[in-house]
């Protein structure tokens, strides 16, 4: 809730700026509405991208341990736990709707409209990531190479790939 009001306050500030500017530069108030929407959405997109980048970075730590025995099991397990924690923010960071089509002009954004048209299905996917990450963290501490490999494949396919297949668009 707090985050929401900060965003709203930010949006108002931007709106005020846009209106001031619109007096001199932008000819219609319609155009300034558009700018506000973009600034608000852009912040959401940035936050999402950073979270996913963090998930990827932690995934890399786990992958390097599983595939090439780099680092330690404890570090890999901590990375898996971190992914589980990041996964809990998915409902919040995807709350603001900003899709591929809408964001064409403001950089790389690969969210598919299906995220919002199938919001419950999307949230279920987030929960899968959370659960699989917890299992991964536990299995990494158990030490059995076969179980670790198997869980890593399930974790990646179900937790990451499954969601990306349905809800993430191509690079544009």
């Amino acid at each position, binding site marked *: 809730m707090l985050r929401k009001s900060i965003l709203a306050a930010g949006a108002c500030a931007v709106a005020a700026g846009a209106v001031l500017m619109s007096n001199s530069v932008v000819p219609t108030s319609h155009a300034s509405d558009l700018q506000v929407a973009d600034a608000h959405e852009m912040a959401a997109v940035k936050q999402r991208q950073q979270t996913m980048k963090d998930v*990827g*970075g*932690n*995934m*890399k*730590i*786990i*992958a390097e341990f599983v*595939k090439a025995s780099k680092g330690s099991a404890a570090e890999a397990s901590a990375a898996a736990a971190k992914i589980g924690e990041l996964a809990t923010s998915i409902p919040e960071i995807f709350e603001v709707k900003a899709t591929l089509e809408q964001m064409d002009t403001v950089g790389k954004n690969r969210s598919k409209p299906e995220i919002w048209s199938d919001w419950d299905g999307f949230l279920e996917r987030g929960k899968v990531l959370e659960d699989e990450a917890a299992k991964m963290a536990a299995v990494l501490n158990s030490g059995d190479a076969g179980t670790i490999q198997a869980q*890593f*494949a399930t974790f*990646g*396919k179900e937790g*990451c*790939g*499954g*969601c*990306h*297949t*349905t*809800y*993430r*668009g*191509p*690079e*544009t």
Partner: protein
Amino acid sequence: MVEDLSEDAAVSDAVQRGAYVFRAAGCHSCHTDTKGGGAPLAGGRALKTPFGTFYSPNITPHPVYGIGAWSDEDFEAALRHGVSPDGDPYYPSFPYTSYTGMSDEDIADLQAYLFAQEPVETQNKPHDLDFPYSLRFTLGLWKTMFFEAGAYQEDDQKDAAWNRGAYLTRHLGHCGECHSPRGFLGAVDDSLELAGNPEGPDGGKVPNLTPAENGLAGWSESDIAGALKIGITPEGDFLGDSMGEVIEHGTSHLSDDDLTAIAIYLKSLPANSGP
């Protein structure tokens, strides 16, 4: 076809082998309208391209709406020559331009597998193409310009794994159909094969698979095999969207030897930074 299919051990072997060919050939993703909740292989999946939208046909063995009434010759003509049972040429959205290289045995096994599936009563949807691509009669001319039929011939200068990789990549797996740029007539430019496609299906950018800097230069053979098996990239990202479907229904089911063969083949290509 003979009546006692289930009694015939040779046929059920063919079905089993065909199941693997089916995975490697990636038929499921395009011939199933997953988004629209369509039945497996009953077609209707939209493929948006710069030439218009194609709708894949029903390839279940339904005698009226699917391929159930096709003869062995019809099936081979479709895959090897890109010709329908009525004698009409197919659009190259159906990747017969790659499948033409399939072995006789793989074609027969794939047919056995498809004919062992559940028939589904779903009517085909006509393509929705832009002019002049909507003129089907021009396809005959297109084929004489860009298509040469024939099974893959092994390169005896290379080992078995490389040849298997080339066969899987260029023919059965038809990777180049999405991973190569197309000219305005829709044909893949041979000099840019597998070098990525800035205008891929559904408006996406399709990555370069040659060992160029903007391609797979930084990927090891095991990185490539891992991406095809579970979708992971060396950065810790997981592939999704249309490649996610290819992995889910296709490459994740292939043997480790076959995935390594694909990796060996891709790493052997000349680096090509693409269009």
